[in-house]
């Protein structure tokens, strides 16, 4: 497994050594090495958004017995590129009476929060931007910062639909954050560490989805709600709120929201693959390919939910979150604790 992992680690080291040889300054090499990681994360997000927009439409079409995009290129694979050109050349409309600084900052801040969560995702053995001691907690803490930009966009747009959407964001994301954190706690309790590399290492024998099935289901539902996807897309419910906080945005500003949304979905899938599906562990194939397969499976699951469940009502959303998911996740923590105490008594 170690030699297969060295593909990306080796690439990073090669870059570092090349820069060191060229400049002779260790701090320049260190800086370039770090920047290479940032560029890597950025390209993962952008490429996945590029593919996922197309894939989402194809999966949707498949589930509704349609063809989906099929005009541009073979099987319509150039559809997304046409979309990007459209978004980039679209006029940037700033409505009257918006709060300009906050209105402009909101999409950027949301994307920043989405991108920062990728710092702790282990794509392969050793391929992690920052293997922090608090790993998974960092993901939760940074991910929770997404609430504020959404509210900011809703408030600064000076539009009642956007404001209602922003208010709903706060209610929904804060409510579902709690079961999300508690569902992750079971895994942390078994591992005894929040470090991502430790969590993956603990799953070399048995994936945590086997020992923590309830936590996995709770995580799945809560993360669909956190990423504001159907059936929990009350924030942008088209039939009632136009597009929620995104109503007044057009062109690339709107694309930023879209990008952040996909980045959060991929991030949530990566965390599910890392915490419950064994991360990069797997036989024969290199680790990063295993990780890719698991993340792809999780993303398909998210899309499946989106096109097969109807949107739920606000009151259903709230009562489900507080009366079903939260007690379930707490029971899971208690049961995990009792199990650990019975079978692995601490010293």
């Amino acid at each position: 497994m170690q030699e297969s992992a060295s593909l990306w680690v080796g690439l990073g080291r090669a870059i570092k050594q090349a820069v060191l040889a060229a400049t002779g300054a260790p701090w320049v090499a260190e800086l370039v090495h770090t920047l290479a990681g940032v560029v890597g994360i950025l390209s993962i997000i952008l490429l996945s958004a590029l593919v996922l927009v197309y894939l989402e439409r194809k999966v949707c079409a498949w589930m509704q017995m349609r063809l989906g995009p099929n005009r541009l290129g073979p099987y319509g694979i150039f559809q997304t590129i046409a979309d990007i050109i459209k978004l980039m050349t679209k006029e940037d409309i700033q409505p009257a009476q918006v709060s300009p600084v906050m209105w402009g900052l909101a999409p950027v801040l949301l994307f920043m929060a989405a991108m920062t969560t990728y710092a702790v995702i282990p794509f392969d053995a050793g391929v992690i931007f920052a293997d922090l001691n608090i790993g998974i907690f960092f993901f939760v803490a940074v991910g929770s910062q997404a609430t504020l930009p959404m509210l900011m966009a809703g408030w600064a747009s000076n539009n009642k639909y956007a404001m209602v959407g922003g208010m709903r964001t706060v209610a929904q994301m804060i409510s579902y954050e709690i079961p999300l954190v508690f569902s992750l706690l079971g895994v942390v309790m078994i591992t005894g560490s929040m470090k991502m590399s430790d969590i993956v290492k603990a799953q070399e024998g048995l994936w945590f989805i086997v020992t923590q099935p309830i936590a996995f289901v709770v995580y799945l539902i809560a993360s669909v709600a956190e990423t504001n996807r159907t059936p929990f897309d009350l924030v942008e419910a088209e039939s009632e709120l136009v597009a929620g906080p995104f109503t007044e945005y057009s062109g690339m500003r709107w694309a930023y929201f879209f990008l952040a949304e996909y980045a959060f979905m991929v991030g949530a899938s990566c965390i599910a693959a890392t915490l419950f599906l064994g991360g990069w562990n797997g036989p024969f194939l290199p680790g990063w390919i295993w990780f890719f397969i698991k993340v792809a499976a999780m993303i398909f699951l998210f899309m499946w939910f989106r096109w097969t469940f109807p949107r739920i009502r606000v009151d259903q959303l709230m009562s489900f979150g507080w009366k079903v998911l939260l007690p379930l996740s707490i029971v899971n923590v208690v049961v995990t604790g009792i199990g650990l105490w019975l079978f692995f008594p601490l010293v």
Partner: protein
Amino acid sequence: MENGGLMHTLAFFLLSGITLAAAMGVVFKRNLVHSAFLLSVTFLGVAGLYMTLQAEFMAAVQALVYSGAVAVLVVIGVMLTHRQQMSRSNPPNKMLLVGALAALSVVGAIVWAILATPWKVGKGSVVTAGDIGRRFLTDFAPPFEAVALLLLAALIGAVVLFKGGKAQS
């Protein structure tokens, strides 16, 4: 890394600057919503300072609990201050002297506390979340439980307030 010290100093001053500037904004901005969003920047700046002190867990808690709660603060601020113009929702008043006195006495108390504390240089060991948890359930169990009870009471109180209570029969 020989540049570690320099980077550390740079990060400290940058983060302190951001934190202080945002805190000034919280006080001086006329718009309550702008103040609340700047408060979130202040909290994130403090989280960054914790990060430079290698207190990663504290930094994450600061970001999750404090900065995350600002969203709720904004909602409450918008909902409870019924103003047509949010730009006048944080009005100044004529209490300059009293305010200055109160602020100065708080500063004095903090400075006195800092000067009176015998600061010990730690052994450089990183405090992990596990250490904090262990202390919570051993040495600091009574205060921890007391806080838990207080929060539970607040939670129940909030639910009761929200329900509005049926008319007494």
